[in-house]
């Protein structure tokens, strides 16, 4: 046996061993999860269990839409766009104004029109922000862009929260003010009762739109020319320049798509909960969605989806078991997952180039 054969066989053994333990690990984790779910069903009953599952999926869908944008921008530009939660807020407010206008003028299919317009407007804002704030920092250290993203986030929140009566003319027409606004009912609320489980038509719509947008996004990234260019930019920016790919254009488009997803999430969020609290409303959903994206493996689109549903469902169950736990549980899960899988559930480890 030569040295090479020896090392190969050892390598193979290690590989199979790793695979085996992984498999065992998954079985182990699944058994633990199933055991807890079983305990839950025993103490709360199957009806409550199913209802909470529906609640969790609904919550997860909102997180998923925001997380998709986060993960997409990160995957291509390697920038954590902290302003994403605020673009989510912007989308919700645009939908509020459009929705009121359409309802006042008796439009049909107003929800779909509002959704598309809001996505388009917010995408414009997202692309503008990218051009003004992030483009000058493209080949600068990544930390600079990260801090800028935080700055943009704080600016958007606090600018739109200004009271219109306190600021001069051209600006007071733009800001939303810190008021509390009831969101127009673009779709009338209907509750269906399936064997004791209440399902709301808006919740179903949330889930459907999330799935559609995710498939659409997967299609764009994997099957179209623009998607190919995006993946190329994600792979190696300098090589793209040499191949004649306009990386500025591609990155701007990426921001546009990511931001429009945030706007879709904002519109659905506002429609589901029926109110806009203040221009600060994007902070918490944005943070949760960011955690979900990291949990699923930031940069991975199915990962963002999976992470969001894991978060939504576990948060709901944790809240149901003890309502003080709900918020903390998201962070506990994040920490546990990152200890065992530092790249997230579906993330791949890529070596940092030094």
């Amino acid at each position, binding site marked *: 046996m030569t040295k090479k054969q020896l090392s190969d066989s050892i390598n193979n053994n290690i590989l199979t061993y790793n695979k085996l333990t992984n498999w065992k690990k998954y079985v182990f984790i699944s058994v633990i999860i199933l055991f807890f779910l079983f305990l839950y069903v025993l103490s709360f009953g199957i009806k409550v269990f199913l209802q909470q599952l529906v609640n969790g999926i*609904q919550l997860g869908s909102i997180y998923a839409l925001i997380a998709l944008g986060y993960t997409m921008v990160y995957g291509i530009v390697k920038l954590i766009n902290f302003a994403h939660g605020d673009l989510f807020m912007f989308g919700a407010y645009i939908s509020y104004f459009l929705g009121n206008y359409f309802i006042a003028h008796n439009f049909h299919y107003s929800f779909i029109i509002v959704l598309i317009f809001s996505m388009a407007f917010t995408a414009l804002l997202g692309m503008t922000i990218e051009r003004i704030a992030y483009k000058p920092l493209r080949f600068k250290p990544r930390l600079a862009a990260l801090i800028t993203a935080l700055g943009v986030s704080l600016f958007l929140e606090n600018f739109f929260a200004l*009271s219109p009566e306190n600021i001069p003319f051209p600006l007071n027409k733009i800001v939303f003010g810190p008021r509390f606004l009831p969101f127009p009912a673009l779709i009338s609320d209907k509750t269906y009762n399936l064997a004791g489980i209440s399902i709301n038509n808006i919740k179903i719509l949330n889930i459907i739109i999330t799935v559609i947008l995710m498939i659409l996004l997967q299609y764009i990234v994997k099957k179209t020319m623009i998607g190919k260019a995006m993946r190329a930019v994600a792979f190696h920016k300098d090589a793209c320049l040499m191949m004649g790919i306009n990386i500025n254009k591609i990155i701007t488009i990426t921001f546009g798509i990511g931001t429009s997803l945030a706007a879709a999430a904002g519109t659905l969020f506002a429609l589901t*909960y029926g109110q806009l609290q*203040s221009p600060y*409303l994007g902070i918490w959903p944005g943070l949760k969605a960011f955690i979900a994206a990291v949990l699923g493996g930031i940069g991975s689109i199915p990962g963002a989806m999976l992470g969001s549903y894991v978060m939504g469902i576990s948060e709901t169950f944790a*809240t149901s078991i003890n*309502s003080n736990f709900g918020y903390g549980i998201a962070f506990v899960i994040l920490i546990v997952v990152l200890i065992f899988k530092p790249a997230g559930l579906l993330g791949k480890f890529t070596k940092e180039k030094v």
Partner: protein
Amino acid sequence: MNKKLLILLILVCFLFSVSVASAKLVKIGGVACLTGGAATYGASTKNGCLLAFKAVNAEGGVDIGGTKYLINYIFEDDQGSAEVAANAFRKLIDQDEVVAIIGSVMSKCTLAGAPIAQDAGVPVISPTSTNAQVTLTGDYIFRACFIDPFQGAVVANFSYNDLKAKTAAVIFDNGNDYTKGIAEVFRESFEKLGGKVVAYESFTDEDKTTDFSAQLTNIKAANPEVIFLDAYYSAAALEAKQARALGITVPFVGPDGWDSAEFPKLGGEAVEGGHFCTHYSAEDPRPIAQNFVKKYTETYGQTPDALAALAYDAALILIDSLQRAGSTDGAAIRDAIFATNLECVSGQIIFDENRNPIKKAAVLKVENGKFVFVKFVQP
């Protein structure tokens, strides 16, 4: 010629400055939330205070020790956050050197600001902070409203005796001293009456939570006869809507946090028929109340809510006390406030040994998007 003109000018300036200085100012601070989930509270509070102060200023000012003082009302927004409130109190006391403060709205904000005022010896009248701890901070801290133990007991009594509910569920904000205090008292009083609290659910901070379906599903499974939505109007409206969407049909009751004109708009169908306990009713027939409702409606174009009424009351108490104290010294004002016996919009105000007013509560009902008076409850 030029010199003479200059002297004349200086003389005119001097005269003018004397005439300005002759109208003395007394600075009164105001703190409330104009931003966030309870923004209408702050607006109502500010409007209520301004109404009282403007009326006094129009009559030439408040008479303190024989001199007329105009009231200069300096307002700070605390954004419904305890940290910002503490800074606002500090700014008013150190920078503006106010003689007294009316504020803040939320119990958590007043609890954050009160120790600062207590240390500086500046009297504080909170119009609406109902948490029992607020005035226990020290002898400079007063309030114009009843306290949570009383409020919780009123709601529990009403649910048990008038709504004939034997089982109740509570959902409250665990990050807020106000809702937490009421929830505890409600549970205690309801069980003392012979009822049973079958679900006691909480959530963390209404600014961070918008989805209550997990808690409400638990409540639905517990099958109560009444649900106590212990939160400010924005969160309560969300809870009510989500509860109805989950197929919960039992009636809701609430604390004075529901008292905002926005509440029926946000809650819509879901909050119809809900009862809540508050400080005053616009249908109170006493002349002082009717007069206030008329003046407020003329000035701001809307019926005053309880927060406006309490802010107005707090301002009345302060003006009255300044006159009786005869000085702008903190300790003198404090003693004068403590000795208050004044008829206000929300009732006759006399302070007990913990600086809480002893007065009645009103129960209102949401009907066709409006608040309808049901009954008064005496302490």
